[in-house]
């Protein structure tokens, strides 16, 4: 007796799932095989996120070290690779602290709520050909919906901690998350429109030319928006360590802190994976039949490196400037992108509704020009708002002393 997955199941396209299901189905009843195959895949995803987070913590510290003329963790294991393990053991053995006056249930729920959406998000990301747990036909929508849970978790953390810095952080985080959601969604609309699908698998296949070339504007908006959603520099106001200690997770320690850190660094990994899928062509590349996972990892790594690079380079913006940046700069850019892409898709699409390679190349050329112009125009518009008008100084000058002045 063997089990066969119905071809209309959303799991049908998943090669690994089907393999496990069919092998287990040879000896066990079908519903057990169904559960076991699901658990195996869930196990892979959870570990992918958590191990990914561990590797990214190590990688970030090493890379930042290189940026900053220092070494970074290099003691424990080859190149310090076991450093995350050591950190984890340290955090696990810490006392379970909960501040007085905190809301116990909400406080304890937060770490779970931070990690869960990330793992959920990975469910629709194809790591290689036919390996998404669920190649949902509304994949992009699913990702956007699930990722919003984080803002609730952050606000819960700030509210339940009974700490004023945490409250500051939470208030800032929610403000930032809500404002950056909109440009991100608008930028993804363009991607969805060109691919004519919300399924991530289809989007990868539609990228005969990677979408960061076809829609550079959308890619920029997406990266900026995601930096903000991940609370990463230069938009890391929610946990600005020089201002509000650690923001919303000031009061978290021990294993809860470990989970929040895992969520943060795992978030970088997951967002990088999504960006790689949507804009860099995911698993596609030479020999993608066999090396799809490698291409996927390399592309994800590039995006992660970009995030680390931002962090090592930029100072932080102030909260009002971040809001202005979102509403006055990113949102118009996303709109321009949407309008231009809509027109292009409308005009270039053939009768069968498919965009050919040449169409994509034409779009890339047009959109590159649009990107440069749009950034120049809106950059100049926003510049007028932030440029400081030089005051005429009333000098109290001691005569006879040679001075140099600010240019």
């Amino acid at each position, binding site marked *: 007796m063997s089990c066969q997955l119905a071809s209309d199941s959303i799991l049908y396209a998943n090669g690994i799932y089907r393999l496990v299901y069919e092998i287990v189905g040879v000896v066990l009843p079908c519903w057990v095989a169904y559960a076991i195959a699901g658990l195996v895949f869930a196990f892979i995803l959870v570990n992918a996120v958590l191990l990914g987070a561990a590797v990214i913590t190590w990688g970030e510290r090493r890379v*930042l070290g290189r*940026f*900053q*003329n*220092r070494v970074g963790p290099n003691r424990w294991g080859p190149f310090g690779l076991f450093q995350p393990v050591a950190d984890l053991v340290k955090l696990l053995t810490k006392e379970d602290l909960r501040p007085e006056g905190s809301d116990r249930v909400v406080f304890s729920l937060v770490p779970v709520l931070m990690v869960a959406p990330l793992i959920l998000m990975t469910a629709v990301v194809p790591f290689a050909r036919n390996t998404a747990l669920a190649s949902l036909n509304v994949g992009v929508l699913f990702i956007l919906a699930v990722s919003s849970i984080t803002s609730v978790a952050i606000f819960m953390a700030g509210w339940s901690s009974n700490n*004023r*810095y945490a409250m*500051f952080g939470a208030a800032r985080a929610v403000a930032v998350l809500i404002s950056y959601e909109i440009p991100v969604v608008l930028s993804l609309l363009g991607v969805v429109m060109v691919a004519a699908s919300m399924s991530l698998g289809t989007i990868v296949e539609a990228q005969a030319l990677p979408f960061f070339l076809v829609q550079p504007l959308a890619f920029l908006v997406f990266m900026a928006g995601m930096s903000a959603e991940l609370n990463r*520099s*230069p938009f*890391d*106001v929610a946990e*600005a*360590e*020089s*201002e*509000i*200690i650690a923001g919303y997770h000031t009061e978290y320690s021990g294993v809860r802190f470990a989970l929040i850190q895992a969520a943060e660094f795992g978030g970088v990994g997951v967002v990088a994976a999504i960006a790689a899928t949507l804009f860099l062509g995911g698993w596609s590349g030479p020999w993608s039949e066999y090396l799809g996972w490698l291409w996927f990892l390399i592309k994800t790594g590039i995006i992660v490196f970009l995030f680390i690079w931002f*962090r*090592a*380079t*930029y*100072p*932080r*913006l*102030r*909260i*009002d*400037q971040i809001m202005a940046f979102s509403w006055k700069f990113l949102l118009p850019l996303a709109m321009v992108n949407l309008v231009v892409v809509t027109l292009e898709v409308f005009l270039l699409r053939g009768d069968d509704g498919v965009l050919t390679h040449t169409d994509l190349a034409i779009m890339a050329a047009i959109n590159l020009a649009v990107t440069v112009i749009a950034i120049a125009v809106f950059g100049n518009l926003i510049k007028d708002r*932030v440029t*400081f*008008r*030089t*005051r005429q*100084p*009333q*000098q*109290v*000058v*001691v005569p006879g*002393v*040679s*001075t*140099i*002045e*600010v240019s």
Partner: protein
Amino acid sequence: MTIRTEPMTVNVGPQHPSTHGVFRVRITFDGEDIVEVEPVFGYLHRGTEKLAEERNYVQVVTLTDRLDYTSSMINNQAYCLAVEKLLGVEPPPRARYLRTLTAELQRIASHLIAVGFFVQELGAFGTPLMYGFRSRERILELFEMLCGARITVSYMRPGGVFADAPRDFWPALNRFLEDFEDEFAEMEQLLLENEILMIRTRGVSPIPPEVAINNSVSGPVLRASGVNWDWRKQEPYDAYDQVEFDVPIGSNWDNYDRFWVRIQEVHQSIRIIKQCIAQIEPGPVRLDLPLVLRPEAGREAYGRVEASKGELGFYLVSDGGISPYRCKIRSPSLINLTVIEHLLVGWKLADMIVSLGSIDINMGEVDR
């Protein structure tokens, strides 16, 4: 519908990542805007002035190291100048050049920290800070060659310096100057024209010159307010009358100018050091003073220098004994903090941290 709001009081410090030590400010916020500020000091109070009354004149030098521990050399210099005024002696020329040179090296090191932490507080995660520390490390190594210590140097003595520079010092200094130009250019390239740094700091927390003067603000903060007042020019001590340098002043009086003035002062310090190297001549480095100094009873002296934070003054009173009868320390960090209310009220939480960084306080000196 109106939402009921109320101000929120937050204790920033004494344990906070960016209060430069154990400084505490009690701040009342209206949302993110600051409405009230009250600084609280004393967490690092060690009673230096009282301790100085128990030690003889030379021993007090070691206490001065621990005032502003990022610019020990300049503290030494201020104290030694005060004692020399009290005794009415002048150190030999080579000692004066050595003092000028080491003080300027220390000024560079101190400004590198100031700039590094200033940018760190803007949220640039460590990179400019570590760039600064790379060069500072080299300076501390030079100090190690001079006197065996890196931070608490105690290199200067009343009547000169502790010892002449070893022969290896001069080539090492030249190597440092060569490398430093590149290293500092790298840092400037990263920071000076940085768009985010500009919008975060330009026009933020300006201190008008009248306010600065009335609040007895000194040093780079005063100069950033557009007052070209530098004690090295106004009252040249040691070899400062022999060297040429410019005084950078700000024209917008804001955080950016305070940052900019420090960057420029590093360039001027390099100029001074180069002139010192060219002009210094062999000779004795220390006056032949008795081990235990006994200035005349009833004499008093106010010796001051342009320290990296501002005017550092030592007001010494002698009763003819072996230790100062009174040793008042006019510490620039404490007095520059007088403007804190003017600096912070009405600005946002994020600006507050940066403004505090821009006056560059050091708790060792604030609390003494």
